């Protein structure tokens, strides 16, 4: 009898611990948001949000914080990365899903997983060694004097970095489409490409959209690799060969040492909050889309 009692006590406490830890992990998410909001409050009360976001007057020593150049840089670097990587990723995913055998698919998955696991500082280093000189040569050949540390270099590195995420997620979505959908279409006498374009891509479009959104979110917040190749000059870039200064790089370069300047640390935490809101929003969108697809399939 005593043994039964003990087992019940054990079960009760284990359940308690499990639930507490679940509450803890949710609390972490809330806590991070709240802390950043509280810390960004001083600058939000002293300057209006519209002015912070749209002014390009960045002079922390005089207390003027215009985030416009940083926001534009972030958006442009991310946009370049997405423009380069989306076609490559989609074509690769379609090839792996529809045109090849499962052995090669498994091999490619393995390679893509490795690519996804390479630390961003190594991507950055390769960018400095290979991409920056390449961009310099191309830029100078096209008549743009550039050091190579530029928007384009950042975009190229980011494009390589987000590729594994977009491919593996798109591939997963494509593989979820039942084999009957393919067979039925082909039985109507379509070519393989027609089946892919009109049926496969159509039924996978929301999943692929989610994959692209996740890739975008990852690119938006990437710090070290971009920081190493993008030049870090606080100005609105006018061409892809100009240096830029994205938000994550701004935080990484200045946070932790500029505590003596009033409002500076609040401004940098506002930058972190912007990243959190944008990336969090995009992650949420992708999550909900994938959830709905999962429900429809099952």
């Amino acid at each position: 009898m005593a043994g039964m009692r003990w087992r019940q006590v054990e079960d009760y406490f284990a359940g308690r611990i499990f639930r507490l830890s679940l509450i803890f992990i949710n609390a972490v998410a809330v806590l991070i948001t709240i802390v950043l909001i509280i810390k960004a409050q001083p600058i939000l009360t002293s300057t209006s949000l519209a002015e912070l976001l749209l002014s390009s007057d960045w002079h922390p020593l005089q207390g003027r914080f215009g985030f416009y150049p940083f926001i534009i840089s972030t958006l442009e670097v991310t946009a370049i990365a997405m423009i380069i990587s989306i076609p490559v990723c989609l074509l690769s995913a379609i090839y792996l899903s529809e045109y090849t055998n499962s052995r090669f698919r498994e091999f490619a998955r393995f390679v893509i997983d490795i690519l996804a696991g390479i630390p961003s500082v190594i991507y950055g280093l390769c960018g400095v060694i290979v991409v920056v000189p390449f961009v310099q040569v191309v830029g100078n050949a096209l008549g743009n004097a550039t050091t190579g540390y530029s928007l384009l270099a950042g975009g190229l590195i980011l494009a390589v970095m987000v590729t594994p995420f977009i491919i593996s997620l798109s591939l997963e979505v494509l593989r979820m489409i039942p084999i009957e959908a393919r067979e039925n279409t082909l039985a109507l006498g379509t070519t393989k490409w027609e089946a892919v374009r009109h049926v496969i891509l159509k039924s996978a479009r929301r999943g692929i959209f989610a994959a692209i959104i996740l890739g975008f979110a990852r690119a938006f917040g990437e710090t070290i690799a971009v920081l190493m190749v993008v030049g870090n000059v606080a100005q609105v870039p006018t061409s892809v060969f100009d240096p830029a200064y994205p938000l994550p790089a701004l935080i990484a370069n200045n946070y932790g040492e500029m505590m003596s300047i009033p409002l500076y640390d609040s401004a940098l935490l506002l930058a972190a909050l912007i990243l959190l809101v944008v990336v969090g929003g995009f992650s949420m969108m992708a999550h909900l889309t994938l959830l709905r697809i999962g429900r429809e399939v099952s």
Partner: protein
Amino acid sequence: MIISLGLVLTALAGIIFVVVMKGASALSLSMIIETPKGGYYLGKEGGIANAIVGSLYLAFGASFLSIMISLPVAFAMQREYTSHFAANCSRLALDILWGMPSIVYGAFGFVVMIYFGLRSSLLGGIIVLTLLMLPIMIRSMEEVIRMVPLELKEISYSLGTTKIETTVSVVLRQAMPGVITAVLLAFGRGIGDAASILFTAGYTDYIPRSLLDPVASLPLAIFFQSATPIPEVQDRAYTAALILLFIVLLVNIVSRILGWRSSRYIVR
């Protein structure tokens, strides 16, 4: 299509090729077993043992903490413990945490450390890395725990076991390959992350003696040394990158082998 896939595969080959070619030139035993000596940052004697050991301390410490927290959370998300709605909310929260840029973790960690009067230290680095690794670990663990067949659990319950007994001796054992993969995946992510420990772990030429000492790490060693104008120091950044890449690839391959070997003991 083949061309675009070729591009992707070439990118990986290119990265490994560049790092190996550049890194191998300065690789030597003294690089691995010595800490930086006087004049190291001007190209003189010394190695990066401080960064290698520091990175391992950070990653193992954070993995240990993460496992301690992740397993209960992943168990709690089974339907015996939590409602469908609460589990879905937690999944959403974890996905948002997973996608969060590591620099945000770094900034958040630094704010919290200042609040508690902590200087940048091994402890601070471990805590921030734990935050970074938790969502990765929990989501992957939960994914495999959810795959455990319901029949298996029901059989176990029908023998009169309590929930915790079923969870530990049936669910955990059945999910073991996935759990191992989850841990190693998070370990690989943690050891390579630079932005989160930039403010919180600090950097030092010495191997830390206590949790409150600052600690060097491989990603930051690469980051700082590649930014110097002296070629000898840059070469060491390449070597550090080679070592980091080697560790990450090793973890990746070990996780595959372990996952494959332990999957022989599960019920299909």
